[in-house]
């Protein structure tokens, strides 16, 4: 499925081919088996993407509807008999004991969750045309997972770079490098700077990685706030991941 083929097939399904192009396309469908198979697969895959996304969306909605119901206030019962009080207190005591017992494991919990969800963001900028050698070397180091070198090279880039977008990109990938090396403070500062920039470049992506910083650092309040913020926007790029992460966090409570 080459890029040209892809565009041609897409234009066919969008009814964007001219009469002549359509005729040639239909002739190819009849005479070239491989081309016909490619068209069929394209349809199968793109339909699959739509259907899986649609179903994921409904599943998310069902979970929201469940939460709405469980958030409604329950009927109050004013029967404070000793047995009822004991019944109410027992689980609280048990849960408190459990939390105290497990408090020494909080750190490893955050680490586990972080490892489940953290993947350094792909290099999506190396195709950008720029003559900045340090920048290209920094991205090359990033792609080789040499994060110390990435940090050093991006320091050099950030000392001189004037272009706003390049600064955002440099900060973002430097934050990724810091995060991969476990330097949470520096990563947090840089990601916050990307989120606060007026330019929306990498904003939603950075909001997600900030959440992972908080998870790894066991900053529970910040993590809760960050998840809530992402979940206010159902179109957020990381909405589904944030929901899954929230479920994992809820299971641990």
């Amino acid at each position, binding site marked *: 499925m080459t890029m040209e083929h892809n565009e041609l097939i897409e234009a066919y399904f969008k009814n964007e081919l001219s009469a002549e192009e359509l005729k040639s396309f239909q002739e190819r469908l009849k005479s070239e088996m491989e081309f016909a198979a490619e068209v069929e697969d394209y349809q199968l*895959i793109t339909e699959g*993407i739509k259907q899986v996304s649609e179903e994921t969306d409904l599943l998310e909605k069902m979970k929201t509807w469940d939460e709405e119901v469980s958030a409604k206030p329950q009927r109050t019962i004013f029967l404070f008999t000793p047995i009822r009080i004991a019944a109410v207190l027992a689980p609280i005591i048990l849960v408190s004991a459990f939390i105290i017992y497990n408090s020494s494991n909080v750190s490893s919990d955050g680490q586990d969750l972080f490892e489940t969800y953290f993947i350094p963001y792909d290099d999506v900028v190396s195709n950008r045309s720029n003559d900045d050698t340090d920048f290209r070397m920094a991205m090359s180091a990033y792609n080789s997972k040499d994060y110390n070198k990435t940090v050093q090279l991006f320091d050099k880039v950030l000392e001189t770079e004037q272009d706003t977008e390049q600064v955002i990109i440099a900060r973002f990938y430097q934050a990724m490098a810091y995060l991969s090396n476990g330097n949470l403070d520096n990563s947090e500062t840089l990601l916050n700077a990307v989120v606060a920039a007026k330019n929306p470049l990498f904003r939603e992506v950075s909001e997600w990685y900030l959440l992972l910083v908080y998870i790894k650092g066991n900053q529970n309040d910040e993590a809760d706030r960050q998840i809530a913020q992402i979940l206010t926007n159902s179109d957020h790029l990381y909405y589904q991941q944030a929901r899954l992460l929230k479920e994992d966090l809820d299971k641990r409570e």
Partner: protein
Amino acid sequence: MNKKQEALFEEVVRQIGSGDEGFAKQLYQQYKDRFVSWFMKQYKLNQQEGLELYHRCFLVFYYQVKRSKLTALSSSIETYLFGIGKKLMMKEQAKERIFQDLADAELVLANHDITDQEDQFHQQLIVRQILKNVTDPCKSILTLYYFRNFSLESIANRLGYQSVGAVKKKKSLCLKNIRKQLKNEID
């Protein structure tokens, strides 16, 4: 199915077809509690497992109607939902397969149709399994483009790609990889 149930089902088909979310929510809530409590009791499920089972059954029902695979019912909607749930539970208990999505469930439910459409079903199932394992950036690019109908330009802006060409190239590579996996699975 009596006349009242028939009329209700016709209304459900109409409303689901129109994509009315409020109606979907109402329908979802209508059968939930009875379904979850019955399956919790019968199959010794906990609340969460019962709820997840209901999600899958409702999803199957909803999209069978929406995609015109279910145009008539011989029972009430509630009985039909319970029927889906029982079949899924029987299959899970037999440990033949762990159901993870709609296609798995539909394969079980529609096994009388499979002989005619076996290849198509099989391929759809494989595509779904492949798609579920697609990671970013492919996942975001393909979802934004094919499901949310974002333009290539807005995808480029959102994900940090500078040129439309770069997104187009990446999208093409993503599709190519999925097709390669599909061919490997089928061959």
